[in-house]
Structure formats: structure tokens, C-alpha cells
């Protein structure tokens, strides 16, 4: 007698993920905005109508086109030095994007490695690592980043390093917690019994099963990184003028807030929209990746 084979093909992980992600309309909008942001970051200099550092001396502080005195040559107006706001905003996208990518890569890689180590290490080493992370977390993130930049010297690179250091403990804690709960499970024991060595156990058996919360954290810290870098730029400790980084642009525009609203409004709006899009995406990712919420 032959047994009827009733095998239903399991949807691929990506398809399943997309199915749940699509449910969340906000997340999809966030994804589109983020895609546009990434596009500007990659191709900004070719799209921008003007050179972002070119100074049009006879058109300083020109308002946007819909206000009196504005023109289509500078659709969003010009700053006090006569530079085109729109071009600066477009080209500025790449700095924020770059900050997000670099900070998340450094913080996540470091955090995952240390977290895995901590989860598998003997108790004393685990305690030492976690106490070190507690120490870093005891400082308000922006303050620690500010002090680190003061030590390293103000620049965008140093701001990124500082923010990565500050964000890294979150990854360590998250990875360690997942590792500790995964390690109890039968599949890990069976892999151990089958003779898997420690590196294989760490990276191939356990790590893929810990990734879901880490991916969500990565999305959320992408936005934190952009905000913190902009804040450092605003305090004069991040990217230095004339770099069209959005936070730095705000700092330069501060003294004109009561005379020229557009020099202050647009860079901040760019930061807000980008961060909002990423956070929307992060919420969608969490809903799609968190199996507990999926069932409800």
C-alpha cells in the first residue's frame, strides 16, 4: 500500500515575511519613503539642481518659490550664504544614510559577536561582559557620544564611531538574551550530541534563530543613529560646515530662525520624515518577525 503524499510546499521565508509586512500599511509607506531616501543618498549629486556648496551671492536668503521674492531657480529658497536649500537637502541625504549604515554595521557586528560570546561563555566572563555593558548604558547616550567626540575631535567619522559604541550594548544584551533562551532547546543539544564544535554551534546553529529581534533593533537604531548624528552636528560636534549634513545645516541656520523660517524648517523636516519612515518600517518589521504577535 502506498501512502498518499500530502506535502504542502512551505512558503519561502521571504514570501511569508512580505505577507505579514504588507498587512501594515504604515510600514509599506515607510519602506517607500526609505527607498526614495536611499535613492537620493546614492544619486543625490546627479539629481541636485545646483552644486550644494556653490554660493549665489546675489540671491542670499531667498524664500521658497511660493512666497513673494521666491523663484523656481531655487525652489526651496537659499541659505544666508546664497546656497540652494533643495540641493543641500538632496545631497545631505547621503550623509545621514551613510551614518545609519556605518553605525548599524559596526554596532550590530560588534554587539552580536560580544553577545554570542557572552551567551556561550563561562559565568564569570559573562558577568564581566554584562557589567561592562551596564557601565556604558549608565551614561546618557548623547552625553557619552559628545564626550567621545570631544576626545576624538569633531568630525562625522568620529561621531559615527562614538554613536556606534554607545548603541552597541543594546545588541549585546539582545543577542545574549536570545542565545540563552535558544541554548536550552533540544535542537541545540542534538547538534551538540552530533559533534558540532563551538564555532559551528554559535554561528550556524544558534545565531540564525536569534536574528529576528536583532533585525528589528537594527532598523530602530538606524533612526537613532541619524538622530544622534544630527544632534551632534547641531551641537557643532558632528559633520563640519560646509558639509550639507542636515543637523549641521540646522546649526548654521539657528541665528536666522526669526528672519528666514525656511532655512530652519526644511532640514529638520528632512530628518523627521526620514526617521519617521524608518520607525514605521521598524514597527512593521517587528510585527512581521515576531511570532508571538503573528498568532494573535
Amino acid at each position: 500500500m502506498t501512502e498518499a503524499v500530502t506535502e504542502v510546499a512551505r512558503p519561502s521565508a521571504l514570501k511569508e515575511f512580505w505577507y505579514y509586512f504588507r498587512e501594515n500599511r504604515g510600514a509599506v509607506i515607510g519602506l517607500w519613503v526609505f527607498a526614495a531616501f536611499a535613492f537620493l543618498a546614492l544619486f543625490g549629486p546627479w539629481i541636485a539642481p545646483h552644486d550644494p556648496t556653490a554660493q549665489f551671492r546675489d540671491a542670499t536668503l531667498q524664500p521658497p518659490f511660493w512666497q513673494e521674492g521666491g523663484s523656481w531657480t531655487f525652489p526651496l529658497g537659499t541659505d544666508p550664504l546664497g546656497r540652494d536649500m533643495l540641493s543641500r537637502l538632496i545631497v545631505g541625504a547621503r550623509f545621514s544614510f551613510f551614518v545609519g549604515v556605518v553605525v548599524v554595521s559596526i554596532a550590530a557586528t560588534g554587539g552580536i559577536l560580544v553577545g554570542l560570546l557572552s551567551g556561550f561563555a563561562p559565568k564569570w566572563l559573562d558577568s564581566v561582559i554584562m557589567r561592562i555593558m551596564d557601565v556604558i548604558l549608565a551614561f546618557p547616550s548623547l552625553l557619552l557620544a559628545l564626550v567621545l567626540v570631544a576626545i576624538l575631535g569633531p568630525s562625522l567619522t568620529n561621531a559615527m564611531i562614538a554613536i556606534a559604541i554607545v548603541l552597541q550594548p543594546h545588541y549585546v544584551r539582545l543577542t545574549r538574551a536570545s542565545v540563552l533562551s535558544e541554548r536550552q532547546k533540544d535542537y541545540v543539544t542534538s547538534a551538540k550530541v552530533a559533534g558540532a564544535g563551538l564555532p559551528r554551534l554559535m554561528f550556524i546553529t544558534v545565531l540564525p534563530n536569534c536574528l529576528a529581534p536583532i533585525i528589528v533593533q537594527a532598523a530602530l537604531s538606524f533612526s537613532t543613529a541619524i538622530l544622534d548624528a544630527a544632534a551632534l552636528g547641531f551641537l557643532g560636534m558632528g559633520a563640519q560646515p560646509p558639509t550639507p549634513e542636515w543637523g549641521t545645516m540646522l546649526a548654521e541656520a539657528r541665528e536666522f530662525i526669526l528672519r528666514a523660517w525656511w532655512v530652519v524648517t526644511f532640514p529638520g523636516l528632512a530628518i523627521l520624515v526620514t526617521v519617521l519612515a524608518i520607525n514605521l518600517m521598524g514597527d512593521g518589521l517587528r510585527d512581521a518577525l515576531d511570532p508571538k504577535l503573528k498568532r494573535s
Partner: protein
Amino acid sequence: MLNYVLSRLFTFIPTFVGVTLISFGFIRVLPGDPIIVMAGERGLTAERYAELEAQFGFDRPIYVQFWDYLTGVLQGDLGNSFVTKRPVWDEFFSLFPATLELSTCAMIFAVVIGLPAGVIAAVNRGKLYDRLLMSTALIGYSMPIFWWALLLIIVFSGNLQWTPVSGRIDLIYYFPDPTGFMLIDSLSSGQKGAFTSAVRHLVLPTIVLGTIPLAVIARQTRSAMLEVLGEDYIRTARAKGLAPGRINGIHALRNALIPVITVIGLSVGTLLAGAILTETIFSWPGIGKWMVDSIFRRDYPVVQGGLLLIAVAVMVVNLTVDMLYGVINPKIRKR
């Protein structure tokens, strides 16, 4: 309970030592010789250099220096500011009330609006109110607060002329400040208009600093409420015919408050980080502005001491929150 308190205290001590180690290390990892940096552009003779080196103890082994630093810290000795020559400890505690006043107001603002917003959103899950409130909360959560501050200044100080742009009180008022809290001191001074002036100065910074905690509290309250509203005992309460207000307000909210209190406690770090930006923008004479100014002035003892005191303040608050958590949630003590 005692075991729980002791075990929490036990993890506090190594973290404290670690924090002092970092603030101790700070001045030593700066590029260049700290004594040369202190001397500035005037330069030093070799004798004066040796004298200063002995005075600061840089000629002794590093572990001896750390031990001296640690014992100094425990006795409240954090060195003197390069700029004002006053002890860092005194400067910190003379400015701390300003930050505490601002943070407290911001936290009250965040809780008073955030908690009801979260409850309303949870009770109306999926409906218009929920969506509106949660979209607003997400915008607040994503807000670059330094920009938010500038926008509020443009609208309320620039266009409407309702609020002043900087400081804690109008300069025409002068009175002793026994508590350091402007609201209390202005009220007790009895001067006409002083209290109103203090309040008007406080409004915008409070909104700016409270925005992110407000958004976090609203989101957290909503998700905690949703979780609790799905529990069996809520269904029982409904089946018994209790009024919805009583169920939501007493049965559900009380239990939903446990995670919310943790979030409120953990927001203290966020508040202090936010205070750096808020105080700088509004020229609020508190710890945040003091730190930023000292960083720019290269006043290293202040940066070092301030870093340590702020971290310790955050740690103490977190410890307190943990203890409170143990009091309100007996389950956690057993672990």
C-alpha cells in the same frame, strides 16, 4: 525582599567602579599631555611642569592614581574647574536644581498626557482615535527635538510673542534662591509677576524635553493595556457587569502600569540626554548646558566630574526603579 535588594546592590557596586574608571580614564586618553593642555598657550617651565605633575599626582603609578581618585570621589572631591576655579562638586549641585526642575516638569507633562492617550488608544483599538493618537506618538518619537525647539520658538516666541526665548526668569526679578527651584523660589519671594514669569520661561523647554518620553509612554501604555485587556480576569469583570470605566481604569490600568513605570524610570537617561539639547537651545542654566559649555571650553575636570555624577544619578534612579518594581510586582523578587 531583602535578598532582592542585596542582589541589586551587589551589581550596583561593580558598575559604579566601572563608571569611575571611565571618567578617570577620560582625562588620560585625551590626545596630548593634560598638563600642557591645562597650561594652554602660555607654556611652562620645567620646574612648574614637575610641580604641577606632582600636584595632580601624574608622576605616580596609575593604580595609585585611580585609588586616590576613587577615594576622592567618595568624599565628594572631584577637583576644581579650570575656568571658574570652583569645586566641580559645588558647581554641579548649584546647577542641578535647574535641570531637576525642568526634567520633573517634562516628566509630569509626559505622564499626564501620555498615560491617558495610551489608555484611550488601547480602549479604542483600531478605531480612528487609536490611529490618530498612535500616529502622533510615532511622530513625537521620531522628532529631532532640537528642531522641534526651534519650530516652537518661531511660532510661540517669534510670531505670537507668548513666551521668552531663553533663561529661567525675566531679569527684572531678583530674589534669593534657597531651594534652587525657580517655581518655588519665585512664589515664596512674594514679588508680583515673578511666578508667572518663571512659568512662561518653563513652558517651551518642558514641552520640548517631554515630547519623546510622552510618545514612549503613550506607546507603552497602549501595548501594556492591550495585553492586560486580553486577560481572563478582565472578561470575568465584564461578565460580572462592571462599568467599562471601572474595568479599564482600575482592573486593567493598575496592572498595565507595571511595565509603564519601568519605562518612566528608564526615561531618566533619555531626559538627561535631551536636557543637553534643550538647555543649550533655551540657555537654561542647568547641567546639560554646563556640560556642553565645558566640553567647548576644554574644562576637563568639569567634563570628567559631570560625566561621573550624571552617570551615578542615572544608576541610582535605575536602581530605585528596580526596587520599586520589586515592590509592585512580587513575582520578580523570587528570581
